[in-house]
């Protein structure tokens, strides 16, 4: 039991993610979380604005169930399977973050400078969260997939479009981390 309560190492997590992808295909579907964003749009009536969302979203119910499970799993893990919220990141990372204005990095899962309720209720804080989401959602649908669809499924299947997308993920991620984040806080 103690092993479950400790943070899980990469060599446990990676194979479990591969198992999840395997199970989804074995059950006749696929591994792709960002498609649900389009399903949300379709359910919300986006088909009135563009034919792109005139889809039979009921066919994607299985993926909505996967999302409901992910939320539930997050609740189960944080409520019963985690004894400490400390994330043991590299001490150098902690120093780098302090230098750009993010204090106590790793003391909890998320930096309060971005995710605390009081930050969310400021205009700047709200816009950071909103714009981050906008880029993820727009980018994932433009690229045709996110980390699950491209980085895990697509690379496993030796798909060139996925390799190009993952290179794009890293170009964007490196620009944000090295050049934009230091200006924000």
């Amino acid at each position, binding site marked *: 039991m103690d092993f479950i309560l400790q943070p899980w190492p990469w060599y446990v997590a990676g194979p479990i993610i591969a198992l999840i992808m395997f199970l989804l295909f074995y059950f006749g579907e696929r591994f792709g979380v960002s498609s649900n964003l389009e399903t949300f749009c379709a359910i919300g009536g986006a088909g009135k604005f563009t034919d792109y969302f005139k889809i039979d979203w009921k066919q994607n119910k299985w993926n909505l169930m996967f999302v409901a499970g992910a939320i539930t799993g997050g609740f189960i893990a*944080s409520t019963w399977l985690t004894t400490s919220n400390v994330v043991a990141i590299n001490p150098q*990372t902690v120093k780098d973050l302090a230098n750009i204005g993010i204090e106590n990095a790793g003391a909890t*899962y998320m930096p309060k400078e971005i995710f605390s*309720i009081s*930050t969310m209720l400021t205009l700047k804080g709200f816009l950071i969260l909103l714009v981050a989401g906008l880029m993820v*959602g727009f980018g994932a649908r433009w*690229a045709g997939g996110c980390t699950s669809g491209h980085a895990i499924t697509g690379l*496993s299947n030796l798909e060139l479009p996925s390799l190009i997308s993952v290179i794009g993920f890293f170009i964007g991620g490196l620009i944000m981390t090295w050049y934009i984040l230091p200006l924000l806080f």
Partner: protein
Amino acid sequence: MKNIKFFLVGILFGIVMSKAEIISWYRIYEMFKFQSFHMYGIIGSAVLIGMVSMFLFRKKVVKTFEGKEIHVPPKKKGLYRNLLGGILFGLGWALAGACPGPMFVLLGKGVVSILVVIFGATLGAFLYGLFKDKIPH
């Protein structure tokens, strides 16, 4: 109730994302600073084992639980789509510290502010649908 199995797989996904700290903003920052092997080990080992799955699907050694052949749908091709869409996604991934899966796991963890990110991501998908004919693919 045939979808209950997807709910259960989702629970496993939520637990592994939480327990391996993949949902932590700091792990994503650390990855893009190349200061830890953790995320690379996770993605790398998942892809290596995933390749074996794909091989078994392609060789029809493994079929679905209903006995149907497994076809992995090919990804849409297009340099602009993949590269520009990918770069935009990466900018958001590093800022939010979460890609679409972990966003929902964080909601289950009780991170209320992630709702703004999820709303933004849904709005982003909607805007893509509106403007997709006006941007390069």
